[in-house]
């Protein structure tokens, strides 16, 4: 019973992080129609920057959240304005744009990852932050795990409220429904698309900061997180924000249960879910 | 025995009946019209006949043979060709290539490349596109792209041609030309089944008209009977 509880809580903690990783990707695809393969690189940049700030300047990872988020937002915004907008203007159809933007994102992945490798090397980095055990529901968990879970939930909720309550958030949702009409209604569509891409990047880098508080980070960690994000997003429904959270928690639970039963098969289980889902319900659980 | 016959043809999307228990027939040599308001299920019915969709119940027979659920390419080879409501040309291929492909693949007897090209020239001439045969299809005007689709469908040597909103988006002159084209096709011995949203265009060319509303057949008869039908008038006025 105690073990079961432990497995469940581990899964939920993992799920919160998975959800946060995926929300940005879902937003980028849902609104800007970009399957951003370089998503994990923004996670990596967040994690590595936090490590660098912590070891060199002893800047707290919590402060790093406030540094990395806006920086990634700006970077993502710029990348969309310079790269993806050009692709969008030139593409004869959405299908062509989706293909081209995915390929461009591949290019971005190689560029960001290798700049990081040149700057920081390939070593696995880590630092210790709040790794004190805490009693939680009768089981021991690292304080950093619980903190990151709390922050992940708070950020996810804040983001959801932002989309639903603010003017900008409503413009984003309008653009996701129907870009052409949103443009007619006075929404500056290029600005909204770039903002979405930037927000996606910011969510990724924030997730990266949180990841670095619990796990070691390295410059080539991006792709594995991209893959997880893609699986979560396909599970929840490509473009659906609540879907990302649902998908994240389901995958987190599946991960911790399978790890408990047969550790070697956790990733295999993820991919089986992914592939079967693509075959029977590619729109995901909450997809349109 | 009619050339094409459907019995109780039904197709749902989600819980919504797009086409519900529709019976229809098309006699050899006829021009039959299929009309109805937006969302009445006209294109869905065409998709069911041409194999793009499979009916959930009901049967479709062509020349007495059950073709329900066959794949589009098989149905095409059996002698049913179609055009699309939103043009679906091969944009980066020339007009000639567009039509030659149909002649090459759409017939039960395989043509050689040379024969296919001759056949394509013939049908491009028939629809009046000989002058632009080398032009990539994406560069043609909408009216010409629609003609190209007709030529492409004809090149598969069909006995039945399904025309899905051939007139939509055309100006009055182009509509008149398209009506002539439909009549010429019939003179070639090809049976024509047309979907039109606009009633006026269809009244002049059809021998018989079927009216769909909310996926169900609500009326059937000569253009005159349809024009006088109270139910049909209500449906169109109520739109």
């Amino acid at each position, binding site marked *: 019973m105690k073990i079961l509880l432990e497995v469940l809580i581990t899964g939920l903690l993992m799920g919160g992080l998975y959800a946060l990783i995926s929300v940005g990707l879902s937003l980028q695809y849902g609104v800007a129609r970009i*399957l951003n393969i370089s998503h994990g690189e923004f996670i990596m940049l967040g994690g590595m920057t936090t490590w660098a700030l912590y070891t060199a300047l002893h800047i707290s990872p919590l402060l790093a959240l406030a540094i990395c988020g806006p920086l990634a937002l700006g970077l993502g915004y710029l990348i969309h304005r310079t*790269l993806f907008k*050009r*692709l969008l203007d030139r593409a004869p159809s959405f*299908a062509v744009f989706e*293909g081209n933007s*995915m*390929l*461009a994102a*591949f*290019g*971005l*992945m*190689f*560029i960001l*990852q*290798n*700049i990081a*490798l040149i700057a920081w090397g390939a070593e696995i980095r880590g630092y210790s932050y709040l790794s004190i055990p805490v009693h939680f529901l009768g089981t021991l968990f690292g304080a950093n795990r619980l903190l990151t879970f709390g922050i992940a939930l708070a950020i996810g909720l804040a983001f959801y409220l932002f989309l639903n309550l603010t003017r900008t958030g409503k413009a984003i949702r309008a653009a996701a429904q129907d870009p052409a009409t949103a443009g007619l209604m006075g929404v500056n569509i290029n600005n909204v698309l770039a903002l979405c891409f930037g927000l996606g990047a910011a969510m990724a880098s924030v997730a990266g900061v949180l990841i670095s508080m619990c796990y070691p980070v390295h410059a080539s960690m991006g792709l594995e997180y991209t*893959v997880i994000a893609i*699986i979560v997003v396909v599970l929840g429904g490509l473009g659906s924000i609540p879907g990302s959270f649902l998908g994240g928690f389901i995958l987190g639970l599946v991960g911790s249960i399978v790890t408990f039963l047969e550790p*070697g*098969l956790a*990733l*295999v289980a993820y*991919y089986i879910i*992914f*592939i079967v889902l*693509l*075959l029977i319900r*590619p729109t995901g659980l909450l997809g349109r | 025995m009619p050339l094409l016959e459907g019995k109780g043809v039904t197709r749902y999307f989600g819980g919504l009946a797009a086409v519900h228990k529709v019976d229809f027939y098309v006699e050899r040599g006829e021009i039959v019209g299929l009309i109805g308001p937006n969302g009445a299920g006209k294109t869905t019915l065409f998709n069911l006949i*041409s*194999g*793009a969709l499979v009916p959930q119940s009901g049967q479709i027979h062509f020349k007495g043979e059950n073709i329900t659920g066959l*794949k*589009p*390419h098989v149905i*095409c*080879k059996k002698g049913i*060709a*179609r055009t*699309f409501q939103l043009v*679906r*040309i*091969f*944009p*980066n*291929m*020339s007009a000639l290539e567009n039509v*030659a*492909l*149909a002649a*090459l*693949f*759409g*017939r039960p007897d395989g043509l050689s490349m040379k024969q296919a*090209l001759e056949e394509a020239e013939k049908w491009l001439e028939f629809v009046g596109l000989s002058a632009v045969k080398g032009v990539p299809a994406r560069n043609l005007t909408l009216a010409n792209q629609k003609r190209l689709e007709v030529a*492409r*469908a004809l*090149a598969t040597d069909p006995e039945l041609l399904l025309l899905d909103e051939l007139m939509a988006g055309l100006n009055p002159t182009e509509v008149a030309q398209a009506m002539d084209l439909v009549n010429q096709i019939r003179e070639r011995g090809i049976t024509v089944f047309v979907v039109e949203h606009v009633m006026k265009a269809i009244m002049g060319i059809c021998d018989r008209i079927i009216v769909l509303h909310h996926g169900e057949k609500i009326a059937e008869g000569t253009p005159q009977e349809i024009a006088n039908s109270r139910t049909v008038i209500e449906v169109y006025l109520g739109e």
Partner: protein
Amino acid sequence: MRLGKINPKKLWVPGATFVVLALLATLPLYASTYSVILLTSILMFVILALSWALFSAPTGYISLAPAAFFGVGIYTSAILGKQLPFPLVVSLGGLISFCLALLVGALTLRLRGIYFAMFTFGLVELIKHFWLWYEIQFTGTRGRFVVVVPHNTIYLAMFAVFVLLLLTTYLVRRSRLGLALRSIGECEEAAAHIGVNVNALKTVMFAVSAIFMGAAGSIIATRWTYVDPYIAFNPLYSFMAVLMALFGGLGHPYGPILGAAIFAYLEELLITRFPYYYMLIFGVVLIITVLYLPEGLIGLIGKIWRRVRGGHYAAA
């Protein structure tokens, strides 16, 4: 449509191809071992890029599965290399990849666009992690040693696969099959309604392209001597095949060959000393290609050539 008119001015292309092939076939007779090894690598990438283009260029489906079939080939060699003669192992690598691709192709018929890309990518990762688990669970080790084959034999086998692939590409492009594949890329729905058996064609061509990837994998495995699932099923091989083919240009078979040759040589120059810079260049070139070279290097060369010749060869 090429109407079979032979333009004597264009005969130099097949002529030059023949000379180059003859030089490549006899390479071990006059070249150093270093050149033979280098050209083996180049040919391997050429095979990956060209076989990717065989299916993906006309149909427009972005497959990220090359690494899966390549890896299947590698493991065919690793498992059967010691028992069976080399040519048989290579053929089996191709055959098993073909069968796997047939299955995958039939399963994914409904998937379009990025969903197809994601599925094929997921496939590579699924096989990798499953195989890793299987190896550790049932064989007790992570990796395997592969039987060693002389460099010249490896080279000649790679060359033979390349020639077969070139021939296949040529025949497909010349035949009605090539036209039908292009019609799928242009508009799949319309293609089906004018009588093209879209599903069968897609599945078979996907599987045919996998033969060459698998064969290339089972050949190169003998040079690597040790493989594990992370080496064999590395998604990078998918990305490379796609990039090289796009960079070279998909309009003509020489495009992917050119793209792969350039990058394989660049890799040789940079990978050991500046691996990160090599991959960085890789990314930059990919973005430049997508942005500014939609027809790739071969399209650019064609454009410049036409301009230089004052438009003698007007666009067909």
